[in-house]
């Protein structure tokens, strides 16, 4: 090997060492940033303080620690500004991203000063963590944890009895808690339970009530909190909620199961999975094996059910 060959070899060794060192540094950098995310004060100071200065308040915070191949820590923070803005901030080891929603709802009563996030302290648990902190008045509480999911829901009958309504709808965002644009309220913070597929007891309900000639009152009702706002008059017929309570008792068996999309109540009747056919068709076109049922209890007491389920199977001679 000549002098030229030796210098090439040296250069390769040095290059190799540099690559190893960079890998180590980047790995240790990730780890140190990851462990910092376990400290809520760090999260506040590095990602949320600018929002605090703008006057945003803390509505809820969702911390998730999971281990697909290495530990992943993520925060989903939900903020409210009294000017009618909801913001979703997604914080991971790679940085933060956000999305804004305009809302007609006043979340002031169930939001806290943003600095309250610091009080959550340092999470020291090992293993899988999935925790939703939902704030109310002066304290935060854990709405969802890895063992129970969201155990609480609000029964529909408590929202119907003795009320005049225009619309009542159970809402969810896929299978997770998040922000969603829902007419006519605009941005809505939707709590979606991991295990609750009961159409008549949900974590989040949207209600539209008559208010005056120019406006309607819109509300979002959680298991033990509610927020309200005014929206322009909705051209929807008014119905008496108590009439439907009787229908629900009569057809409780048909209305109890099979919730995929949610329940919708308007002046014509009670609909479980109101768009069941469209949902089925979308799944079928995609080539999956869809199966869904829909139930309609009309105001006059007539019940219509519908369901199609596709499975895998072949025919053999008996």
């Amino acid at each position, binding site marked *: 090997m000549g002098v030229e060959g030796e210098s090439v070899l040296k250069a390769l060794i040095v290059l190799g060492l540099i690559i190893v060192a960079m890998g180590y540094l980047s790995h240790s950098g990730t780890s140190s940033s990851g462990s910092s995310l376990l400290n809520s004060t760090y999260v506040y100071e590095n990602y949320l303080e600018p929002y605090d200065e703008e006057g945003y308040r803390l509505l809820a915070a969702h911390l998730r620690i999971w281990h697909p191949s290495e530990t992943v820590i993520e925060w989903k923070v939900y903020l409210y500004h009294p000017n009618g803005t909801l913001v979703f901030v997604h914080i991971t080891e790679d940085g933060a991203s956000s999305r804004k929603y305009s809302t007609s709802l006043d979340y002031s009563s169930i939001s806290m000063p943003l600095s309250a996030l610091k009080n959550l302290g340092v999470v020291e648990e090992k293993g899988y963590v999935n925790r939703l902190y939902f704030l109310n008045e002066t304290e935060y509480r854990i709405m969802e944890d890895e063992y129970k999911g969201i155990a609480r829901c609000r029964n529909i009958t408590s929202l119907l009895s003795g009320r005049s309504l225009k619309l009542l709808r159970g809402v969810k965002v896929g299978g997770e808690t998040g922000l969603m644009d829902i007419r006519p309220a605009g941005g809505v913070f939707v709590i979606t339970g991991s295990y609750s597929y009961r159409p008549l007891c949900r974590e989040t309900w949207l209600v539209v009530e008559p208010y005056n000639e120019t406006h309607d009152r819109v509300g979002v009702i959680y298991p033990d909190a509610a927020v309200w706002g005014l929206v322009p008059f909705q051209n929807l017929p008014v119905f008496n909620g108590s009439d439907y309570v009787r229908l629900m008792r009569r*057809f409780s068996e048909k209305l109890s199961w099979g919730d995929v999309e949610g329940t919708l109540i308007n002046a014509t009747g009670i609909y479980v999975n109101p768009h069941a056919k469209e949902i089925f*068709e979308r799944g079928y*076109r995609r080539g999956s094996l869809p199966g869904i049922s829909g139930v309609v209890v009309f105001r006059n007491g*007539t019940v*219509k059910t519908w*369901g199609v389920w596709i499975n*895998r*199977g072949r025919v053999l001679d008996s």
Partner: protein
Amino acid sequence: MTGLRKVLKTLLLIVLLVLGMRAAYLKYELRSAVVAYERAGVPENETLVAAYHHGNTWQFSTYIDGNGILRVYTVEWKPLPAFILGRLGRKVERAEALVNYSPLAMNVSLLRNYRPHRTAFLFKTLGWVYGDRVNGSYLPALSDVIKPGEVYYSIEGTGSKDRIWIKTKTICDPPSIFAHDYVCRGFIGYEGLLTIPGYSLESGQMVWVVKKLQGDRLNITVFYPGISLSTAIKAKRCMNETMTFTGKSVQLLREAIPKVVLPDITYIQVWVSDDSGNASVEGIFLLPNYRYGTFEESLGSDGS
């Protein structure tokens, strides 16, 4: 050596040519309904009640008057067996007939009237039907077989896209290279009922079987194009509940299965329950690619 190789090559070429010609001739033979019937090997004591042709397949359904046996003979041209073995695929299915099918008996000479088409269907009351017209428009609709106010015991319908069915079959898990055994989930098909090709769920045109109680007898009527066949059996003690048809189920049938699925269904079986309180339709259907579906739709006011 070179000469021997040349001879071998020529021989191989001749063998391939002969095999190819034989396979092509077998396919050519299926252009004739009479030859296809001969290839099906139907015994002389069986009478033809339906014939169906689609692509490279022929099906002949026969009935033996003496013992009430329905049979379906299927002859099929498949490239590999035709080329290597030099023969057509042949399969025979057998079932005890639900009703006496003698009124549907046809003279085999009618097969001579066949004009080559990709799809063709022969039935006593229809003669030969060709191409897109094998679509079930000749079958009676549900509203044709029972009228509002009529009392009945049960209504069942079957429809097939491109096969003659006479048997109940088992629905099992799809084949898997990992599993030596498979699980079966249930049954599909009506044993002994001749289901002819073509149907329309939306217009309720299928092969309908209506059962009515008359004293201690159960009358069974099967509705075909332009003809209905009946039989009566002794009713079982448990058969005492009757229903009065309202007609609500006709609309339910129209909406029961999403339009996107309908063209794919190869066989369907429907149960109709239609009474003053409640009407419902439910059933099971087969789809290509090892899939099947079940459906249910009801309309009523008693919550049951």
